[in-house]
């Protein structure tokens, strides 16, 4: 091969490799990206059944239910308009509690119950996941409800 041909081969090879990687990445992306839904969207049937997504909202007070001594638990996620029941087995994060923002990863069953495989709560007393905050703000006429125990000043 002449140097010119060699360079052309090299450039074509690199382009082919990079585009292949791009196509594969796009594919991986389409199949594996997780969307976020709030309880109102779930109740309205906008969320997919039996496909993983993120459900976010506040933990409704008085709904955290656990069989004593067992890792099985359930609670209700609310955006103050609609509620969705979540069941989960395992360790919940330190800041999981009633009236706090929460994001659950999992699948929605045909019975309308969300089966979570992962529960996230931010490591901060006053944290609310941004998408939860926005969803709740919209539902509440632009006002942020204040949880009763958040007397600490906001963190910088």
């Amino acid at each position: 091969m002449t140097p010119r041909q060699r360079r052309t081969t090299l450039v074509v090879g690199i382009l082919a490799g990079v585009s292949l990687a791009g196509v594969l990445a796009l594919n991986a992306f389409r199949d594996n990206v997780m969307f976020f839904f709030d309880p109102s969207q779930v109740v309205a049937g906008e969320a997919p059944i039996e496909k993983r997504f993120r459900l976010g909202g506040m933990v409704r007070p008085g709904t955290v239910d656990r069989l004593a001594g067992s890792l099985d638990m359930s609670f209700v996620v609310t955006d103050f308009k609609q509620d969705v029941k979540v069941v989960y087995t395992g360790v919940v994060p330190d800041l999981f509690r009633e009236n706090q923002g929460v994001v659950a990863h999992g699948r929605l069953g045909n019975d309308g119950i969300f089966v979570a495989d992962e529960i996230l709560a931010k490591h901060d007393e006053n944290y609310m996941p941004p998408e939860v905050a926005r969803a709740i703000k919209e539902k509440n006429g632009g006002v942020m409800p204040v949880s009763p125990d958040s007397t600490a000043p906001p963190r910088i």
Partner: protein
Amino acid sequence: MIAEIGHYALILALLASLAQTFFGLLGAARNSDSWIATVRPAVTAQFLMSSLALAVLIVVFVQNDFSVEYVAANSNSALPVAYRIAAVWGAHEGSLLLWAWILVAWTFAVAALSKTLPAGFAARVLGVLGLVSLGFHAFTLFTSNPFLRLDPAAPDGRDLNPLLQDPALAAHPPMLYAGYVGFAVAFAFACAAMLEGRLDQTWARWTRPWTTVAWAFLSIGIALGSWWAYYELGWGGYWFWDPVENASFMPWLVGTALIHSLAVTEKRGLFKSWTLLLAILAFSLSLLGTFLVRSGVLVSVHSFAADPTRGMFILAFLIIVIGGALTLYAWRAPLLRSEAGFEFTARESFLLFNNILLVVAAGAVLAGTMAPLIADALGLGTLSVGRQYFDPVFLLPTLPLLALSAVGIHSSWKKGRLGDRRKAILLSLVVGVLVALVLVLGAWQGATLLTPIGFALGVWLMLSALVDPIDRWRRGLSLSRGVVGMAIAHAALGMFVVSITAVESYTRERDLALAVGETGQVGEFEYRLRDLSTVEGPNYDALRGEIVVYENGREIGLLHPEKRNYWVQRQVMTEAGIDMQLTRDIFAALGEDLGAGRWSVRAQVRPLINYVWLAAFLMALGGVIAATDRRYRPESAG
């Protein structure tokens, strides 16, 4: 009073950086010796003032001066002194001050060590660095001043976030910033070369050690952060593809490409414009990382600070710095043609593919990190990208990269001959495959498809990297630091791959519900909760579990996980109990009270996990050794 001294010092540092930029860039453009001579004193002045500002902030923290708003927000009189100092960079304002100080310290080092460089070129380098520090000083002063007073003073502080009260995390930001900022030096060298319109092999020789040292710092910074997340967050993983982790990882990937590309530019005078582009990209990604972390635009465990005006400032700064550099690149890069050619299987080719694969990997990570932001901005819904995306798209370019490195480190410049090394490469490959087979079929059962591939590639690379130094040593040839450093870094990469493969393939984990005296099964291991007691620390009280772990009835570990309750922030924290052993980590974290006397316990046994971080430190060590090679010393330059 003392806080005001810090404030003034910061203003003076800003003015000094202005002088440094002005006289550096314009002095070189006008070719005025007296202007150029002003640059180094300006650097010294900036360094002194910036150091004074940082020192003042440390002093007000140590003195518990709660009339300073930033101290009141991030410290407490009950906080141990070491963490009061670490609290300086525990939040946004102070970490910016630290960022700027590290940049100025690097600049000072460049000024001190660049006396043998052509005066005009050095002035341009320092001018560009001055421009970057100007931006950061202005940002700190106008949007995030840590010296602002609180009137009336707070009686006590709101304490440092308990998550940050940890030795590894205290060292994490300075290391990370030293890496980020170190790429500013490569960036400045690139800009200066473009301004001069001249880039030769001496340029690459000058840029290389700085870039390699920055890369080493970044490696250590990332490893410390990952280590901290492992034992402190209580989840037990070492990498979560969290946006902020990605933010530090992307500059690392591009920086890795850059140090390899610089090697080609230094030795062969090739890849010139590509090297420049990588230098711009590495620093741009560092700035982008700062932007992502500090503006809180991404949902992340790290975004302690969320403030859109700061975000806008950094965005504007990003556009000026990156946009300016890319414009300069578009204009000047065509002048910097590379003339020589090389054979298809020569070292240049291997390094070319190294660069392509690393940049593709960085691009894939960037796409996944930015996608939620872009989708949100375009109103396409709120989405998140997790490891289901990142794992495959990252492995796709990096697995071939490992095989290429195992062969490529033996290739020679210009000519595509492996010569007598062919046997050694093949032999180490065979050993790698055998080790993988023995591990997968014999010692450790139950593997995925990637398990033998990972073991084989990792062992192959480890052995292959050591062939050259061992061969030279046996033949009594001299061993330069460059050779030793390169061998250590590549062997460490192999070790990294082996340990990650073991962790990913053979981790045993399960959530248990245990009462005192009860036992739970985790794979072949048994966790017994022997006792629960209450203990008290300096600023918290804690419930402490005592867990004994058995393997086939034999006791192999004793763990003391804690559930801490920090008084000031009223925050509950999980302090995992970890027994670090030579070949595995035995891990337990206390969850919550489940009722009926039971507690939830997160139990994990992870083989070889400590070698993940050890490998990262060894890579950094290899980088430092290579960067101190004789040929980079000023006296032998030229």
